[in-house]
């Protein structure tokens, strides 16, 4: 027992001295993994940009189990990491549990929902208007589609992904009211975020049903969707990060969700981070669609102008994109 106390004391001393020496920020990646080419990778890119520009260092962990959520938060907090940035809606609850215990440390969560944010003065919740960005890429898909059938491959079947699909369907219907949209979800467990093989199979099945543009909102699974689309000679739409470069000429565009900017800004603000709710929409360039040298040839003048017009309309409030969250259902799509 005394041996154990001794060890515990030594560990605590190390932790304390380390905490005093560095106030590095920390970044916690969700179960999808750091290199999902999508959501988490966008966060990683933002942090890397910060590290390169400032020469700073940050602590990081890729979670591998549910119990680690709170554990990682507490361990980083005890070490004095500040701010602690977390990705994914599943981190919202652990953050709201841990944050009150460390009032001097700022916590950031991306995508999470905090019913009691008022009681958490040291938490910044960042959300994105994914339905608005998806609306725009839905328009592009409908304009590009020749068969009148487009596909959607989601990751795990959760409201967030239905939120993406719903915006996409509304955009497509705005261009072509008769268009057929095939929505598929990869799975019902978190493994669905990282199953490129199944994503590819779903994409091929949709091609079999006539789809010629497929939007993947599925984290790492989307890599398989984009690959299958390139193999089958149809077009795909990437998500979160700019994925146009993955298969140049086959990826029509990517629905950008600027997680990288959000993480970069959080790390740059450091300990002086402003907390509360931050909603990033089209108006803030928080979401959007990607145009670069890889997809320029795929987009016509007419497509761009129509989408830009819609974008202005959404920002001005003339076009209203219904959010799936409004009443947990989509007016133009059933799942």
């Amino acid at each position: 027992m005394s041996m154990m106390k001794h060890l515990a004391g030594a560990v605590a001393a190390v932790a304390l001295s380390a905490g005093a020496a560095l106030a590095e920020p920390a970044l916690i990646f969700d179960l999808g993994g750091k290199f999902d080419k999508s959501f988490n990778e966008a966060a990683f890119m933002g942090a890397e940009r910060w590290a390169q520009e400032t020469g700073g260092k940050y602590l990081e962990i890729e979670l591998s189990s549910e119990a680690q959520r709170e554990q990682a938060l507490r361990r980083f907090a005890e070490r004095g990491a500040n701010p602690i940035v977390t990705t994914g809606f599943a981190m919202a609850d652990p953050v709201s549990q841990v944050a009150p215990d460390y009032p001097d440390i700022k916590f950031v969560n991306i995508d999470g929902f905090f019913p009691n944010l008022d009681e958490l003065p040291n938490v910044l919740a960042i959300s994105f208007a994914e339905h608005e960005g998806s609306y725009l890429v839905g328009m592009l898909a409908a304009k590009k589609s020749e068969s009148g059938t487009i596909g959607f491959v989601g990751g795990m079947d959760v409201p967030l992904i239905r939120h993406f699909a719903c915006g996409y369907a509304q955009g497509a219907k705005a261009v072509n009211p008769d268009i057929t949209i095939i929505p598929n979800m990869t799975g019902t467990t978190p493994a669905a975020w990282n199953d490129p093989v199944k994503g590819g199979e779903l994409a091929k099945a949709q091609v079999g049903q006539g789809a010629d543009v497929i939007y993947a909102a599925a984290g790492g699974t989307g890599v398989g969707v984009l690959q299958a689309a390139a193999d089958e000679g149809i077009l795909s739409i990437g998500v979160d990060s700019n994925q146009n470069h993955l298969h140049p000429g086959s990826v029509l565009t990517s629905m950008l969700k600027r997680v990288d900017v959000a993480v970069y800004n959080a790390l740059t603000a450091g300990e002086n981070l402003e907390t509360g709710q931050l909603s990033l929409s089209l108006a803030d360039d928080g979401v959007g669609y990607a145009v670069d040298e890889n997809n320029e040839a795929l987009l016509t003048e007419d497509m761009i102008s129509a989408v830009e017009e819609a974008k202005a309309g959404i920002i001005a409030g003339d076009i209203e994109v219904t959010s799936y969250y409004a009443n947990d259902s989509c007016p133009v799509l059933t799942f």
Partner: protein
Amino acid sequence: MDTMPKWVDALLVPFISVLIAFLISGVVIVAIGEDPIEAVKLMVTGALGSTYGWGFTLYYATNFIFTGLAVAIAFHARLFNIGGEGQATLGGLGVALACLFIPWPHWTLALIGAMLAGALFGAAWAAIPAYLQAKRGSHIVITTIMFNFIGAAVLNYVLVNQLRPAGSMDPASARFPEATNLPTLHELLAPIGIEFSKAAPANVSLLIALLSCFLLWLLVWRTRLGYEIRAFGHSETAAVYAGISPVRITMIAMLISGALAGMMAINNVMGEAERLVLNSVEGAGFIGIAVALMGRSHPVGVLLAAILFGFLYQGGAELALWTDIPRELIIVIQALVILFTGALDNMVRSPIEKIFLARRRARQAAQAVEPAE
């Protein structure tokens, strides 16, 4: 028959297997340019060097004890229950429903109620494959693994459409009421003067798990039913000849197995998360198979193997926190242990058996020669 002393069979063979697994892991760690000695140090201090580390190690171990015992009891009847994952998932649902919808006055009552609910749901989930095996001959390996997927889908449906609080994105239930929160080891040990880490999730379920170990031992080796289960496991035809009903034993063994897997939920759902999340089981059902194999289906072996895997989980988490070793490699280390203790058991066992056989022959030969002199 008994070529080796008991301690060799139960301790030495697994120990050598684990040692080989760690040596190969060390090679892998060197290959990616990290220091294996440092990694082992980090794992050991992180998992066993503080009450905080122990708290996590024992928390994981509690999960693995329940699922390990679940697989072990089925093994005794020669039934390979791969469905611990699904049974524990459904057990979680049972525990969550009991905690959310029954206004418990005190945690002790809530614990008993939740245990019953978790066991009932887990057993019910095992009952269907058991019935199909007993009556229809559908192989239990296939049906139980299929039921894992159905279980995940059921839970997903219930969480997304029924239990999710309005406005929340996370497919998880609301938090359980205060009264159902189980005391952690910190709260249990404080009155007797032991300072245990507050942050660690190990809780009173650990004691239930230890009690389950003892009761399972009692059942399997000290009761008539346990004898019937073992007899059926060793030879079905002989069991039938002795008047043991295969249908009855298959059903009973699987129901106990499912109930044990379901009871795991009092630890992870009720004790740790205090709400039901989608992947609360996260592979403990499958780890249970490795634990039962390594523990040779004996409760003591299961207990020790569960602690070893708890150590691997918590040590792995520490590696992920403070080094650049990617989490995939931590899974590689865990996989190597499973590979050597489970699948490649005979690779270590048979050479050791040969050594002991040779020594015994030498001794016998010596004894045979002596009287002649």
